[in-house]
């Protein structure tokens, strides 16, 4: 059999990609075979998985999930699709983190920020110039919907406090702390350790400047609790926040979130 989008077709020797296109979706512009683009003349083998894509057409949730399966190890996608991740702060860490998780098909994101998009954010945060003045929650939700419309996004559009973090994020699988303010960073870890014992945690400290790439590291504090950064590089006059280094840290956080969701929890 050949699998084509949601259908199964009987395999016939000599079958080519163009034959499948004409039978299933004559308007298709792009064909993905076993995860990679294939020209119309490509010979198919029994058991191949084909995805026919028409430019400008949004694939269904099932189609997109299958296309993500093809790029990720089997089994990974089912876990990610069921998962809920909380993100506190949608700045230089939280916005690229949310984008990475949506791209990987994490099924549920709970995003918290009280701020609006300002021009100074555009040097590192995942917003666009036509989003200036919008709440970061709404702007990021709109961006994520353009990447993967099948991620369920909940927004908390207000300033979090230490006292209400547990109620806001009880029940998430992993909570990422992406605040700017060091007092809130400490408060979030403190309350998570005290009151959210079943939630995985990925915090951050020390991401400013353009220092050594490899000084950014992911440190395991205890079971399912991690801290990303160099621990020292504070944002301050003379040491600003830059897309490159904050981005390294954001993607450390993203990969650690994925590791926790997939049950990996070990010292580096």
């Amino acid at each position, binding site marked *: 059999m050949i699998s084509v989008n949601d259908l199964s077709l009987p395999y016939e020797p000599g079958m080519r990609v163009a034959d499948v296109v004409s039978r299933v979706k004559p308007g298709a512009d792009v064909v993905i075979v076993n995860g990679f683009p294939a020209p119309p003349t490509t010979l198919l083998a029994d058991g191949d998985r084909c995805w026919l894509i028409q430019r400008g057409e949004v694939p269904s949730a099932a189609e997109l999930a299958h296309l993500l399966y093809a790029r990720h190890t089997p089994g990974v996608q089912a876990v990610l699709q069921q998962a809920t991740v909380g993100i506190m702060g949608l700045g230089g860490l939280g916005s690229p983190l949310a984008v990475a998780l949506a791209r990987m098909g994490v099924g549920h994101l709970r995003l918290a920020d009280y701020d609006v998009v300002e021009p100074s954010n555009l040097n590192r945060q995942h917003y666009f110039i036509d989003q200036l003045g919008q709440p970061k929650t709404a702007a990021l939700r709109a961006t994520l919907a353009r990447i993967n419309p099948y991620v369920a996004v909940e927004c908390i559009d207000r300033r979090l406090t230490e006292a209400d973090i547990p109620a806001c994020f009880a029940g998430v699988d992993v909570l990422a702390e992406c605040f700017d303010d060091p007092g809130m960073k*400490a408060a979030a870890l*403190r309350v998570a350790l005290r009151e959210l014992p079943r939630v995985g945690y990925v915090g951050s400290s*020390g*991401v*400013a400047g353009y220092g050594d790439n490899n000084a950014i590291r992911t440190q395991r504090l205890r079971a399912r609790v991690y801290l990303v950064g160099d621990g020292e590089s*504070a944002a301050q006059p003379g040491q600003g926040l830059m897309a490159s280094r904050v981005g390294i840290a954001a993607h450390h956080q993203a990969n650690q979130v994925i590791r926790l969701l997939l049950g990996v929890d070990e010292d580096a």
Partner: protein
Amino acid sequence: MITILCNGESRRLEREMSVEELLASLGLNPETVVVELDGRILSRPDYAVTKLTEGATLELIRFVGGG
């Protein structure tokens, strides 16, 4: 004089003092530090009222700003 273990290093204090006093003596803003004392994470109000005694084991996790 008492001796405590702070982030794995032995440290001598002139007297018993609160966690908040220790943080001040180290030049740390208590708002930016998570404190684990003898395996227990302290709440923020505890910093001022929790005394460090001989043999206390302390882990301090300090945060810097930026994100």
